[in-house]
């Protein structure tokens, strides 16, 4: 537990020091998205990495969070914080309801069902033009504010988003080391064995699905208020796959791995500007190669790969 605390404090220190390193708005802006994607990747990892249940529809929950917040604040002038809470509760409630039938499915079937769910949500964003503004998007979403402090520039948004990100990581790490975390891993290994050990498999899977949707919706809400705009294209199948890629790269079941995966996949397109549309090919390759050769993700995979290549010096000690 002490190691966890040290890791966590290092993360907090790094996050706090970022604004002193990067004074320009561009990098801060990129880091805002790193924060949002980290929240999403951690949320998905709780489901995919710990409980072993795949979701190819998480972009849908993210989008619902963004749109509920957006519509409530831009169209109905609800207080943004209240809207965020409503969005998160509504989305996790939806996930809870749909979780019972959907999480009865396994493997490929679960993948297809969540994918279908994500696509239905995406179609609604596009077609419910009166509410969502259709394919051209919803604009005029206000920034979040605390009293007179309005989160309207990159540095302020950075502080806002990373506060949420850091809380999310703390929550996820604690969950992973709790009784629930162990029960989830038991489900991952064998549902039958977990049930025999007294884990309420069905309920726990649904609860973690709802929690994952809750975090995704908060991330969506933050996204909407930071961008002051939401369009369906950000919440499609493509983004769901990107999220899965982040989790896989970081390693299933590794919270800090998800942070790494989200950071890498958010920075990669920024660094490879020339690739533009073709970054999707790189995602495809990364997905295949990492799954084939480093099932534990890059964080575990690269050191063990290096370990296999380099001569072993430390052997024979003691």
């Amino acid at each position, binding site marked *: 537990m002490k190691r966890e605390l040290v890791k966590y404090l290092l993360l907090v220190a790094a996050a706090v020091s970022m604004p002193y390193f990067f004074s320009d708005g561009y990098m801060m802006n990129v880091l805002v998205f790193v924060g949002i994607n980290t929240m999403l990747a951690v949320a998905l990892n709780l489901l995919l990495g710990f409980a072993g249940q795949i979701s190819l529809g998480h972009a849908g929950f993210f989008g619902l969070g963004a749109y509920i917040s957006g519509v409530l604040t831009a169209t109905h002038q609800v207080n943004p914080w209240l809207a965020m809470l409503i969005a998160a509760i509504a989305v996790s409630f939806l996930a809870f309801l749909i979780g019972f039938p959907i999480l009865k499915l396994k*493997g490929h079937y679960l993948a297809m069902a969540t994918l279908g769910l994500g696509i239905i949500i995406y179609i609604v964003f596009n077609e419910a033009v009166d509410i969502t503004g259709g394919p051209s998007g919803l604009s005029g979403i206000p920034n979040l504010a605390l009293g007179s402090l309005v989160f309207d520039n990159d540095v302020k948004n950075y502080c806002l988003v990373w506060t949420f990100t850091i809380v999310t990581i703390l929550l996820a790490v604690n969950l992973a080391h709790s009784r629930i975390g162990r029960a989830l891993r038991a489900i991952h290994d064998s549902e039958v064995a977990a049930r025999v050990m007294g884990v309420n498999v069905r309920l726990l899977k649904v609860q973690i699905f709802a929690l994952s949707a809750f975090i995704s919706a908060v991330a969506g809400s933050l996204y909407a208020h930071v961008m002051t705009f939401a369009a369906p294209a950000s919440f499609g199948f493509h983004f769901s796959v990107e999220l899965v890629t982040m989790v896989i790269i970081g390693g299933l079941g590794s919270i800090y791995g998800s942070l790494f995966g989200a950071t890498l996949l958010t920075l990669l397109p920024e660094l490879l500007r020339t690739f533009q549309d073709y970054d999707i*090919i790189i995602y495809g390759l990364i997905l295949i190669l990492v799954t084939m050769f480093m099932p534990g993700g890059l964080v575990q995979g690269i050191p063990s790969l290096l370990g296999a290549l380099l001569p072993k010096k430390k052997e024979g000690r003691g």
Partner: protein
Amino acid sequence: MNLSDQLIQFLLSGFATGSIYALIGLGFSIIYNATGIINFAQGEFVMLGGMVTVFFLTSLHIPLPAAILGAVAITTFVGLLFERLAIRPIRKATPINLVIITIGGSILIRGLAMLIWGKDTHAIPGFSGEEPIMIGNASLLPQHLWIFGMTTLAIIASKVFFNYTISGKAMRACAFNPRAASLIGIDVKRMVLFSFVISSAMGSVAGFIIAPLTMTSYDVGIMLGLKGFCAAIIGGMSSGLGTVLGGIILGVLESLGAGLISSGYKDAVAFIILLLILFIRPQGIFKRAESERV
């Protein structure tokens, strides 16, 4: 047009798109039965069937029949490569890993198609012109007849293959019990390869016969693939009549939904059906439930 004419029209076009879904769905179930894998890249084989035909027709000016044969050959080769490079070498073949690898494969194929042919939408001319055939007040395109004909042919061919050839019987044996199949001397790995070859060929057929009706581009594979999967799920993943009926049911419902309710939500119909079937009867609507082995 009065309502009954309209209904006939919806039924006809639903039947045609349904046939396509059936062909794609058969591709899904053939691989699933041989390997237990749901191949998320199935839709990309359909896309390749259309796009390679377009490429041969417009860039190389090859006549249509040769272009089609070329497209089937290339797509089949891609299917073969995919199995050899991505499916066979995988070490830890949990279902989630297989899902992710086939998704990775589909993204890669789609991305490469975009790299090679760009993002434009292309059309193939109808195989026998565009003059509609009138049935009462409903019209039917010659291409629809091609679709019915080719689908029937493909279904009969696969039926003959699976029931009357030694390779087909061997594949069914693998689907039934891979270990027992290998004990009696069937090369299971080869059968897995075969299943990818047959599915990609079948997918490419679906791709080039639908292209004259709906146009084609690098990204048509996602939707068509998912609809095909939906057909296979309705049919209980059978590599025979169940999936064919599943495709036709889906096509007709979708066409009715688009015509009578809203065309914008047309694609949602398929997924709502998919979810309902998965929730209520995951074994398909024609099959009895099987208990899961632990």
